[in-house]
């Protein structure tokens, strides 16, 4: 199984050039990445660790990390729902660290 440190480096190299940075709180980031790896292990895909998965890849495709909602959330709040991916301004505390509400529509949650 992939280690958290490996995943951190792989994702960082891909996401930073796109303008998505890992939260500077590395402990929290490692917890989130461990959650992603745990979800990969049990569901077969890296579902968001902060959302309840339906254990159906097709149904959960919008919440496979990075989720569909990351772009508008980072745009509006400077952070994704989980505080995993943030903007540079968020990390540098040039914008407030607000609570990021769930953007996924209610009807997408089906169990």
């Amino acid at each position, binding site marked *: 199984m992939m280690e958290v440190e490996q995943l951190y480096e792989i994702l960082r190299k891909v996401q930073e050039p796109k303008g998505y940075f890992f939260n500077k709180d590395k402990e*929290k980031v490692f917890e989130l990445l461990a959650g992603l790896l745990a979800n990969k292990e049990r569901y077969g895909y890296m579902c968001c*660790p902060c959302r309840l998965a339906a254990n159906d890849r097709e149904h959960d495709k919008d919440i496979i990390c990075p989720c569909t909602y990351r772009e508008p959330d980072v745009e509006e709040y400077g952070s994704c729902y989980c505080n995993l991916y943030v903007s540079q301004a968020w990390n540098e505390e040039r914008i407030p660290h607000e609570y990021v509400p*769930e953007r996924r529509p*209610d009807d997408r949650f089906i169990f």
Partner: protein
Amino acid sequence: MQRSVKLYALSTCPHCKCTKQFLSDCGVKFDCTDVDKVPKEDVAAIFEEVKRLTSRCSFPTIVIGDKVIVGNREDQIREALGL
């Protein structure tokens, strides 16, 4: 008497972990359900309960007496606990 405290959480979510830690640090006894860990046949009922309480499906959801808090918002939790 302490208000009853019920926490709906996800085992993989650091925000939920912070809420668990915060409640413990406050010396609050709480009943916690890690919803991603419950048997598949029970998830739907718990999901419906969380949705009924919050009209959302977001974790952590904390029920303190008759107050419902969505998210790890310590000031709101503190207020609801009367701390």
